[in-house]
């Protein structure tokens, strides 16, 4: 049964109800007490997001300082429920203009109730596109005080658009300047052993799009991925130009992309929503260009002293540079004193996370700064167990670099009126979970 929820609660960290909406009669009104008693006030919290208490099941997620709890008593679709929560939070964020937290909820509770009524009916998720909902669920603050009748005036076609085949874009948009911004954002996930061999490495990328296009445009995106190129060369019966092709392990698309056409023709074609959205996500495991290599040597000298040497090598082009590089090197809890030498950036000891934190604001390609530190430990008798070394973690952003080598080959825009569009493409690679064991 695709039912996703019988009731939904928004609770703050103390367990006070911020919002509650019952969609079905099969769960009691104060099941939230059970949640508070059996999950929030116990060690269970955070051990499993799906729990059964009595005859009801609870799914919960924490988002900033709010718990969103879904209660069901039937064999509900859990995947659907969690995805609904994620999408609903995105929707609320889009309405509140950013933050989703306890204050935002309290300040907008009437609106949230209104939205909750609209986006789910009898436990079945309905249209959650912010774009469309904003057509007819508006905020008091947005409306001009002189036209208090605004809400009563039926928005032309609003209902048709909610249910329409293009349920994510409204009609009649006009822009003076037609522009499209494409951001290719890649996160590199790496797990490297202390000996420098790659245990796991993959790139999860997403293509974010910001569209300011008039009318109902049809877009087609071309990438330098292998399958797409092969298909193209088949159709045009001419060999592809030499150059790097990328093999995507998997792609998922925003609901606007015609999946059947992608399956048969391997082209990404779509009518985009207005404004910002995530067009597609992809994953690559082969041929990843790691932007950084980390070479740690950590020596324990007796019981009270440690010597830490870390060399970080940037392996991207010399003309490029990385921003906001942070290297977190874990040290034991009983660290007493540290002293550093770094060839670039600044380092300090952060006791709250038990790490040496080395920050380099601007990190050019093809360089290899080092950090050497001496760590003095308080000798403790109790701690017989040898120190379990958590991995070194790294954060960074490298603009104009893709770890996968993915490139946008073209973005074509067709619209009846035949206007010209300007396309902007940016690339950036970030650290996902970039871990080096030591």
């Amino acid at each position, binding site marked *: 049964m695709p039912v996703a929820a019988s009731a939904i609660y928004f609770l703050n960290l103390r367990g006070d*109800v911020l*919002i*509650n909406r*019952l969609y079905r009669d099969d769960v009691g*009104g*104060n*099941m939230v007490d*059970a949640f508070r*008693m059996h999950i929030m006030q116990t060690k269970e919290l*955070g051990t*499993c997001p799906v729990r*059964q208490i009595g005859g*009801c099941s609870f*799914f*919960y997620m924490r988002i900033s300082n709010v718990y969103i709890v879904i209660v069901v008593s039937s*064999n*509900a*679709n*859990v*995947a*659907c429920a*969690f*995805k*609904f929560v994620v999408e609903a939070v995105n929707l609320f964020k889009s*309405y509140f*203009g950013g933050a989703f937290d306890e204050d935002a909820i*309290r*300040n*907008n*509770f*009437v609106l949230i109730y*209104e939205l909750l*009524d609209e986006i789910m009916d*009898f436990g079945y*998720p*309905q249209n959650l596109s912010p774009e469309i909902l904003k057509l007819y669920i508006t*905020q008091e*603050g*947005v409306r001009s005080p002189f036209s208090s009748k605004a*809400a009563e005036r*039926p928005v032309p076609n*609003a*209902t048709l658009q909610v*249910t329409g*085949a293009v*349920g994510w874009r409204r009609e009649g948009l006009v822009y003076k300047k037609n522009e499209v911004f494409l951001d290719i954002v890649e996160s590199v996930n790496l797990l490297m052993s202390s000996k420098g061999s790659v*245990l*796991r490495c993959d790139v999860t990328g997403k293509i974010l799009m910001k569209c300011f296009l008039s009318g109902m445009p049809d877009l087609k995106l071309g990438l330098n991925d292998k399958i797409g190129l092969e298909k193209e060369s088949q159709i045009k019966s001419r060999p592809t130009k030499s150059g790097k092709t990328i093999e995507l392990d*998997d*792609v*998922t*698309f925003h609901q606007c992309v015609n*999946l059947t056409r992608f399956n048969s023709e391997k082209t990404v074609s779509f009518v985009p929503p207005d404004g910002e959205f995530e067009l597609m*996500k992809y*994953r690559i495991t082969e041929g990843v260009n790691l932007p950084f290599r980390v070479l740690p040597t950590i020596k324990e000298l007796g019981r009270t002293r440690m010597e830490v040497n870390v060399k970080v090598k940037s392996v991207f082009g010399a003309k490029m540079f990385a921003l906001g590089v942070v290297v977190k090197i874990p040290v034991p809890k009983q660290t007493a004193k540290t002293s550093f030498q770094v060839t670039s950036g600044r380092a300090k000891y952060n006791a709250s996370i038990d790490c040496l934190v080395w920050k380099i604001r601007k990190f050019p390609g093809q360089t290899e700064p080092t950090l050497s530190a001496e760590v003095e430990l308080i000798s403790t008798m109790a701690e017989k*167990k040898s120190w*379990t*070394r958590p991995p070194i973690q790294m954060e960074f952003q490298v603009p104009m670099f893709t770890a996968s080598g993915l490139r946008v080959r073209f973005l074509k825009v067709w619209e009846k009126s035949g206007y010209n569009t300007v396309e902007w493409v940016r690339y950036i690679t970030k650290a996902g*979970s970039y*871990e080096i064991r030591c």
Partner: protein
Amino acid sequence: MSGHDSKYFSTTKKGEIPELKEELNSQYKDKRKDAVKKVIAAMTVGKDVSSLFTDVVNCMQTENLELKKLVYLYLINYAKSQPDLAILAVNTFVKDSQDPNPLIRALAVRTMGCIRVDKITEYLCDPLQRCLKDDDPYVRKTAAICVAKLYDINAELVEDRGFLEALKDLISDNNPMVVANAVAALAEIQEHSSKPVFEITSHTLSKLLTALNECTEWGQVFILDALSKYRAADAREAENIVERVTPRLQHANCAVVLSAVKMILQQMELITSTDVVRNLCKKMAPPLVTLLSAEPEIQYVALRNINLIVQKRPTILAHEIKVFFCKYNDPIYVKMEKLEIMIKLASDRNIDQVLLEFKEYATEVDVDFVRKAVRAIGRCAIKLERAAERCISVLLELIKIKVNYVVQEAIIVIKDIFRRYPNTYESIIATLCESLDTLDEPEAKASMIWIIGEYAERIDNADELLESFLESFPEEPAQVQLQLLTATVKLFLKKPTEGPQQMIQVVLNNATVETDNPDLRDRAYIYWRLLSTDPEAAKDVVLAEKPVISDDSNQLDPSLLDELLANIATLSSVYHKPPEAFVTRVKTSQRTEEDDFADGSETGNSESPAYAPDSSTSPPASSSSAQYAGRQAVAAPAASAAPALVPDLLDLGLDNSSAIVSVDQPATPAGPPLPVLLPAATGQGLQISAQLVRRDGQIFYSMLFENNSQIPLDGFMIQFNKNTFGLAAGGPLQVPQLQPGTSASTLLPMVLHQNISPGPPSTLLQVAVKNNQQPVWYFSDAVSFLVFFAEDGKMERSTFLETWKSLPDSNEVSKDFPGIVMNSVEVTLDRLAASNMFFIAKRKHANQEVLYLSTKIPRGVPFLIEITAVIGIPGLKCAIKTPSPEMAPLFFEALENLLKS
């Protein structure tokens, strides 16, 4: 564009409700709207604002859509508590359902469907009929869901008024969202109906598959879930369906992907071509892996499902084991599930890598995770013969770290490895023995003791090692005691020298005389008899070769697995339990083997080996198969030991009356053993157990006399002291002469109201028993109030009400039982009825169940009982009204004992 609604939560403490009432009736629109917002805010924080019902409903007649929605929201919450007033709203609803604005039409129908009041439902039919045929798709899609709502309230009405046909027509609607909602509604109705409501034909199938392309993401989920029940006619049709569903695997919505996977897996069953199947497996792998980059909660759902999928089709993710490597910052529930899947995917090809990972995890911080990682190494050893040696060397390395819980966990799994590969790796026992002193967990201790006993002949100082455990025998947990017993017997059989012989005396004495644990006592007696009658037979039994175990732990039964796969993405697939096991409302055909699946604790972690107390030759094994094997091993000795149970073969110099009683006294009523009131130690060898019971409307004193003295006893007589109820013997005590070592039981009829003791009611019953050989024995018993409840205590509803009203309030007494949980109304009622408390009526108040019962004690004194509890939540309140309120404490005490057990 953030709002400022938080001001509505601030309240003026004094006279809040009257103040709101005034504002709601204000002549100014804005003030009224603000007031309604305040009411909703109060409702949200849990205040009862139902008294404002009329005032809020009066605001309903408004042009302002926002205000209207707020009033509707209020109605949904409170209409049920004010059904008579709710009717006031009907007119507006009906009017709104004909409004020119489709949003308002839809809103009216949607809200009416949420108000579960019969009177409103009656008026819903006409608007709903209209809306199902509305021009606007938005109204139709809302009406479609509303039919499901109505069906939930009144199924007959839906069938009679032809709504089902209207709904089926919507499947052919030209709007995809209407189609999707109609499908969802039909699928739900079908689930609760025994009649065929929504049968998917190949025609509807192809129509719906086409609609799939145009639906919203959620609509795709509804349709895919409904279609997954479709059975294709042949392989060709199945292939066609799959071909049209596979593009969905690329969807960004995880629910769409999982529903598509579910449908593909269903159809794959029919596909015969191995090429097609292989190809499909290849296509499904990447989307499944991609789910692991979603939010952790979604990852968890995905991992629980992947666990099922790899059991059915191991090839799908055979090459993807790396994606299940745990990230340092993964939440613990994700790590645990990944580990489980890694074990399933481990093979000779990737085991080296996997072992490196497990070893890494075994040094992390979270204790539960570390334990699971160590256990995982053991399970890989059992699963992959060629890798066993490497696994063991990793375990030994871990033992050397000397982290206590790692060592203990390692020993538990090594015991299983010994079972799997007998006579292969015993050389490591010496290393294990070094860690002996650090063991403090029962399972680890039991495992180590099992190892010592099993390999006693190879461990030079096995007797010393075991002896060190024996000192604390009485304090050990049952699990360890059982193992110590078995291990000592093994040691004795292998090395029948003086040391072990003394040890076995100590152990057998401890395990028979000194213990209250029947399992331990029984096992000890069996060993004892075996050893004293035929040591060779004992060897055959105790040292029998054990069946080799294999690792199929956490593997589900194939038929269950298929059922769970048909439920991918739902709770059932997360709990790894069929829906009937946790959903009470399903009306589909009843399953009989419901309780077969003990697997899967509430947390959803299936790793919870229930300790089988009966595995005698092997300690409770860490994997389920080992447990099973252990049980088999027991079955054989038990059977061969059976003849030895004939009592006269034994001359153990011990009274084993407890074992014999059941043979001698077939007349003893079955049921739980009677509580011992006069222990043998006090009664110079005479032991008396007794309890008041009620049988066929008569109270009896059920007694058991056991003569553990050296002399025959006769001439038993009994006398009761004055007591609250005036209980006294209704006849002479009829007990025959008791020979030493025998026992006798009797039912002594009791009469009431004989020697009533004054003073406050008490359950104390003092008894004196004498015989011709011994002095008079005095002991006291506690009367269970339950025995007085008469069989004719059932009342008519009307009598109940009258009696309740006729009694003054001062006769009402109530008590809370915070520790009692009512898990099911039926079970509780059955239990109460068994004690002659009769069910009168029940009602639901919010989520509380309120039960009314009656009972009667002698002299026709009625007890009217009201029990209030929330199903599944500890805390139960009981109020009683009776002409004899002084009996209330006794009543509550009895009720608590009854419900607690």
